[in-house]
């Protein structure tokens, strides 16, 4: 809780500057610093946290500028009243853009950067050619500036300071909030985040709206500050490039990184301009950018950017176990009531029929083995049930509710969790945070402290407690597999889909894993167990279903099914001779 105190303290101290009677030059310089702090920090809320690098921030600043210029310059609105409008219109534009773009899964990374840049030029062209601007630009000289401070420069200073403080506070709050956790997960692996219950579309939209609104306010103030708004200066590539540069230099994973970068770059540019070396100043900025990317890829504050989870209060595993016990009583015998019912499920990829009318049911409390040769559709089935892929045909009824059309995060909220055959941990989150995330976003949507307790429990359960603060890259394959398991368990699922958790493990590691999975079932979870390690399938499962070419070819008790000729044929081929 130190950071909010710091922000408030620094803010109060800075608010006293206009009363010191300094030359207006200082206030104007600090105004510029605050302006860029707002732009860089607001950009970072979407782009730094979630990894969706926008090159369209100039568009939202521009929308703010033109909103204020139009309302104050042409319709005689009082200046301050135009700022909420500037924020609202910028945010609405952002939401409209995000509504379209965030639905297209391929528009990530550099393609998102490009499309936002293109949108900047489209909006700029429209502004230029319509009465909004019309070509000559808009003058704001005659708009009265409210006398908040004794001097105009003081007024601009205090407005920019207030906006900068608000922006940094919002960035801080989001960084600590559930929204921030979700955005960081999106940054590392959006598909996995969605499957773990993060409503990725809504989160991206929310972050974009906040980011755009703050840029819009900054633009509105800037319009008044420069008092002459033109299209060419506004909708250019310069704003986004500066903003990216500042944030990357300061560190995009830290809420204060962009502010540090903005202050450094602005001071540098201003210093060179003041000394008549503007050209050298620009070159220096270019050089700094190159050096920063090459030698400090995480930014100046990158080392401090890792979110340290609060240490959970020490608690005995037994007590934590009470917290974590799922709804069903431990050790419940397999019942005949279906927990999950799949009917006529079909899914094709470019003509390959991965699932072809699959019917199966999973009974509450059982371990259902799902086996079949490579390419038989096992992983696709898991992907469809968990909501990652949408089926073309068929129904998936989970606890009496059809979830075939649900988005993946809603499937997770309903109580289905999965692991990945090739572990897909969030690379920049610690092991602890990786496990706490599904607890926070899963069925019970635990609060931060409870999620940390839950995560600690499952880390102990899977034997990863000693690695809680490590990054996933420091784990070996065995530990990563168990991290997958711990993440799936931490969401307290009613149904657990295990996709080849044993592949690549040594025989003794497999023995340990089998014991662990049995213990999970004894806690009341229902498990679908996709596996090639036949020994484990035979030891663990109550029933098995055999898939081949996307169809169910056999179903029944493990020993009996594996002896059937059609199953043997599917695995080993037809006997010749």
């Amino acid at each position: 809780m130190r950071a909010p105190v710091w922000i408030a303290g620094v803010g109060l101290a800075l608010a006293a500057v206009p009363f010191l009677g300094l030359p207006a030059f200082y206030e104007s310089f600090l105004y510029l610093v605050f302006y860029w702090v707002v732009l860089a920090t607001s950009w970072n809320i979407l782009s730094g946290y979630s990894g969706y690098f926008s090159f369209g921030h100039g568009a939202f600043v521009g929308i703010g500028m033109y909103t204020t210029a139009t309302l104050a310059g042409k319709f005689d609105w009082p200046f301050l009243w135009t700022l909420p409008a500037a924020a609202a219109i910028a945010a609405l534009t952002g939401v409209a853009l995000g509504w379209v773009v965030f639905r297209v899964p391929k528009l990530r990374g550099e393609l998102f950067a490009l499309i936002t840049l293109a949108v900047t030029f489209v909006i700029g062209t429209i502004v230029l050619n319509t009465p909004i601007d019309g070509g000559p630009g808009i003058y704001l000289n005659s708009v009265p500036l409210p006398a908040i401070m004794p001097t105009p420069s003081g007024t601009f200073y205090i407005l920019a300071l207030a906006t900068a403080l608000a922006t940094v506070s919002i960035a801080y709050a989001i960084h600590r909030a559930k929204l921030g956790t979700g955005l960081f997960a999106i940054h590392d692996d959006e598909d996995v985040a969605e499957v773990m219950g993060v409503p990725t579309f809504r989160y991206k939209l929310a972050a974009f709206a906040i980011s755009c609104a703050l840029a819009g306010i900054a633009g509105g103030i800037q319009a008044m500050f420069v008092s002459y708004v033109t299209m060419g200066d506004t909708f250019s590539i310069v704003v986004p490039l500066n903003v990216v540069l500042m944030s990357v230099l300061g560190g995009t994973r830290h809420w204060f990184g962009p502010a540090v970068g903005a202050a450094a770059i602005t001071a540098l540019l201003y210093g060179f301009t003041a000394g008549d070396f503007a050209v050298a100043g620009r070159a220096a900025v270019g050089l700094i950018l190159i050096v920063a990317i090459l030698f400090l890829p995480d930014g100046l504050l990158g080392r401090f950017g890792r979110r340290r989870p609060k240490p959970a209060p020490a608690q005995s595993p037994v007590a934590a176990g009470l917290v974590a016990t799922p709804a069903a009583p431990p050790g419940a015998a397999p019942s005949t009531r279906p927990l999950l019912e799949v009917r006529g499920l079909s899914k094709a990829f470019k003509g390959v029929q991965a699932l072809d009318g699959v019917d199966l049911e999973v009974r509450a409390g059982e371990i259902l083995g799902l086996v079949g040769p490579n390419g038989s559709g096992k992983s696709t089935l898991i992907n469809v049930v968990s909501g990652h892929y949408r089926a073309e045909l068929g129904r998936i009824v989970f606890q009496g509710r059809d979830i075939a059309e649900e988005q993946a995060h809603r499937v997770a909220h309903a109580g289905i969790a999965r692991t990945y055959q090739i572990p897909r941990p969030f690379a920049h989150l610690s092991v602890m945070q990786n496990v706490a995330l599904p607890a926070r976003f899963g069925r019970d949507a635990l609060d931060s402290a409870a999620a940390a307790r839950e995560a600690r429990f499952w880390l102990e359960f899977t034997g990863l407690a000693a690695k809680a603060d490590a990054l996933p890259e420091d784990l070996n394959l065995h530990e990563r597999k168990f991290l997958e398991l711990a993440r799936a368990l931490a969401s307290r699922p009613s149904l657990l889909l295990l996709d080849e958790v044993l592949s690549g493990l040594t025989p003794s590691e497999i023995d340990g894993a089998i014991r662990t999975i049995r213990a999970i079932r004894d806690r009341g979870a229902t498990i679908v167990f996709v596996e090639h390690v036949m020994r484990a399938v035979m030891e663990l499962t109550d029933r098995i279903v055999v898939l081949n070419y996307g169809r169910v070819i056999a179903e029944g008790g493990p020993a009996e099914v594996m002896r059937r000729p059609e199953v043997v044929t599917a695995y080993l081929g037809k006997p010749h001779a």
Partner: protein
Amino acid sequence: MNLPSLTLLGQSLLSGIFIGALYGLLGLGLSLSWGMLRQINLAHFALAFLGAYLTYQLASAGMDPLATLLVVLPCFFAFGVALHWVFARFAISPFNSLLVTFGVTVIIESVIQWIWTADYRRLESHYGDIKFRIGTLFVPLPELLTLLVAIALALGTWAALRYTDLGKALRAAAEDAPIAAAFGVNERALAMLLSGLSAAFAGVAGACLALSYTLAPSQIYAWVGVVFAAVMIGGLGNPIGPLVAGLVIGVSEALTMAITAPAWAPLVSFSLLIIVLLARPRKF
């Protein structure tokens, strides 16, 4: 809205083709390094302008503008190789390559501004005076040269990638570098060669710029958006795509300008880009 005369329409169609050729020429190197090296080389534009200024300087000193390429191209090739060496040494991600080359862009822009000032510069050469006449239409020689060079380089690159062993090795390395290396392809040397070639292409584009356009350091950024659009629409790593897309964009811009107002032109290219990004089914 008045429909312009047939002559005017023909002339603007022609100018659209010519500027489209330049889009394609600028896009060629960009597309190759993006598609095959996974580097988004923003510095390509700055390099082209640096080449244009060098051509301007050497030609003003008495050299034939086309002969200046003999000096410019080897230097640029070496620059491209060096740039790739840095990228490979630091294992730069595609997005960080964009940021680093933005830094390079800013530095080159500063150098240009320092040497040649921010004023507009115009190369006066005998090429600029030569115009052909086809019916009622005028065809200036520099623009025609640009078009021919753009076509020649695009087709030449395409053929080299498709038919020569070196080209096949390059495509294999672009597809899967470790596997290509396992089959004996010297992937690192090839990547440097390709990066050098892209930079040299920027030099060629620069000479064409100098022959037909007025130069100013700030103009570097004016081309970024529309050439990116041509590259994306044309398909990354495809040598002919940027030229075709550039011509389509150039012509549609020119017609937009002739029919409505010149200021509406950017709407065409960027709307095209947005539509392509949204509608194209596969990942680029």
